[in-house]
């Protein structure tokens, strides 16, 4: 997050009409400039970027943080004339001197795509001057590498001096990849590897934590909740398969549903035992008959205070788990119909391991159900 003012020098000489970079050198350069602008402003919103065209060393856009303005002027640039490397760099330095951010670091990014006619001595002199003024220069060498590489290497080395590493030279061979080559280069990535990932895809969830921290946080939290839920499921099936008699107390209704769904779904496949809620021996769904399954379901639902979540199978021939799960919605109707038969209920209760049919509570319940059944029968008879 370096606080920096950058001037980008674009080469707008006639050499930029060349098509060795796809589609033309000028277009490839424009994409690359776009990339650099974005990366500078993204790494620190207070950064300023300016634009200069090298052919007659004219400042197109003075230092600003408005990337739109820079791009607009950039697209109006036409290839014309010949560049003067030294003049351009000097004017860029002057423009940097008149920056608003007095504590910003100074940087010049130069795109060179045409042969430099200037003497190497002159170039080194400029480099030394810039080094004294603590300006860092990144040079992107493309197009005319053969002629320029030596001079530019000398330039960058002179600026860096003995120990400095803040100026870089990037040489890009011809091809369609000027911007791509820059993406991984030190021009964008910076000295310490910071400031890379440019697009939203670089960030988790496609959201920049810097730009929208709340959204990023919300996404992360929901992701973790989902993960925790899944882990719980996996843990429970794992526990079931080992057959431990772990007392997994049914904390919530949803958990029960989940267990049953899991157990039910595994009925056709393998013998999966769902951990019991009361701590009695593990119940093996596959081995139970239809009736036993119903009984178990009823028992579970009774134990939770009659909460109506037992996936009572509607059609007894259809013992598929999916049917059970789907018909959870029709529970109440199923439940009431099944419950309407007190004899059946009595049978069930007697077969349940943990329930004492003679307990008062059950007797009361049975009586009330029987009464209501009688009442409904009476009602049915009356209208007739």
């Amino acid at each position, binding site marked *: 997050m370096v606080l920096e003012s950058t001037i980008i020098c674009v080469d707008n000489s006639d050499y930029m009409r060349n098509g060795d970079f796809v589609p033309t050198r000028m277009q490839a350069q424009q994409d690359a400039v776009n990339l650099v602008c974005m990366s500078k402003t993204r790494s620190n919103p207070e950064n300023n970027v300016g634009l200069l065209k090298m052919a007659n060393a004219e*400042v197109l856009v003075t230092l600003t943080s408005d990337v739109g303005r820079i791009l607009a002027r950039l697209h109006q640039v036409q290839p014309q004339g010949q560049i003067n490397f030294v003049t351009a760099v000097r004017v860029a330095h002057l423009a940097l001197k*008149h920056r608003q951010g007095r504590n910003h670091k100074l940087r010049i990014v130069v795109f060179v795509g045409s042969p430099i006619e200037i003497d190497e001595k002159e170039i080194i002199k400029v480099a030394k001057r810039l080094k004294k003024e603590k300006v860092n220069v990144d040079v992107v060498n493309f197009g005319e590498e053969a002629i320029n590489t030596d001079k530019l290497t000398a330039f960058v080395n002179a600026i860096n001096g003995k120990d400095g590493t803040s100026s870089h030279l990037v040489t890009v061979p011809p091809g369609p990849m000027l911007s791509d080559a820059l993406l991984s280069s030190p021009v964008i990535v910076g000295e310490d590897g910071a400031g890379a990932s440019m697009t939203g895809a670089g960030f988790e969830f496609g959201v920049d934590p810097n730009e929208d921290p709340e959204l990023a946080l919300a996404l992360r939290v929901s992701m973790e909740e989902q993960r925790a839920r899944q882990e719980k499921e996996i843990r429970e099936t794992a526990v079931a398969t080992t057959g431990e008699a772990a007392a997994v107390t049914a904390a919530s209704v949803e958990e029960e549903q989940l267990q049953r769904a899991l157990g039910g779904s595994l009925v056709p496949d393998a013998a999966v035992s769902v951990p019991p809620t009361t701590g009695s021996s593990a119940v093996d769904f596959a081995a139970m008959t239809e009736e036993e399954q119903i009984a178990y379901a009823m028992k579970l639902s009774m134990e939770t205070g009659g909460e109506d979540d037992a996936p009572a199978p509607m059609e007894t021939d259809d013992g598929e788990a999916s049917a059970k799960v789907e018909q959870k919605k029709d529970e109440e109707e199923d439940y009431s119909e099944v419950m309407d038969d007190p004899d059946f209920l009595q049978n069930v209760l007697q077969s349940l391991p943990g329930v004492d049919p003679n307990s008062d509570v059950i007797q009361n319940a049975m009586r009330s159900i029987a009464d209501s059944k009688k009442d409904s029968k009476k009602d049915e008879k009356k209208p007739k």
Partner: protein
Amino acid sequence: MSPPDHHVKINKVVVHPLVLLSVVDHFNRMGKVGNVKRVVGVLLGSNRQGVLDVSNSFAVPFDEDDKDQSVWFLDHDYLEHMYGMFKKVNARERIVGWYHTGPKLHPNDIAISEMIRRYNPAAVLVVIDAKPKELGLPTEAYISVEEVHDV
């Protein structure tokens, strides 16, 4: 009141005292910083029947390299913004030219004039001497004339 005509050729330039004061103040400000080079600014006013009335001015950030005459920088974004703000309070004033404190003409004045010509094709340059040695008008006005040379 007849509208100011822009196309009549200028034969006289009248500089208001406000402009002179402003230029000298700018020069002294820059002098305190230690930068005793010349200062550059833009002139505002109107052209009435060949008489250019320079009524206001403002300074612009300007820098040049002493040794290399072709290296100079003038902040044109600042110029445009400032002019826009001036227009808000006095719509009649237009950019009519530019000034510098010379005291003499410089080789890159032509290049700078070209830049100012983008805002007004008939821009004049007024050299205002902030430290005059003799009595008399401290100002000298120039217009650029294009000549075709047979080389």
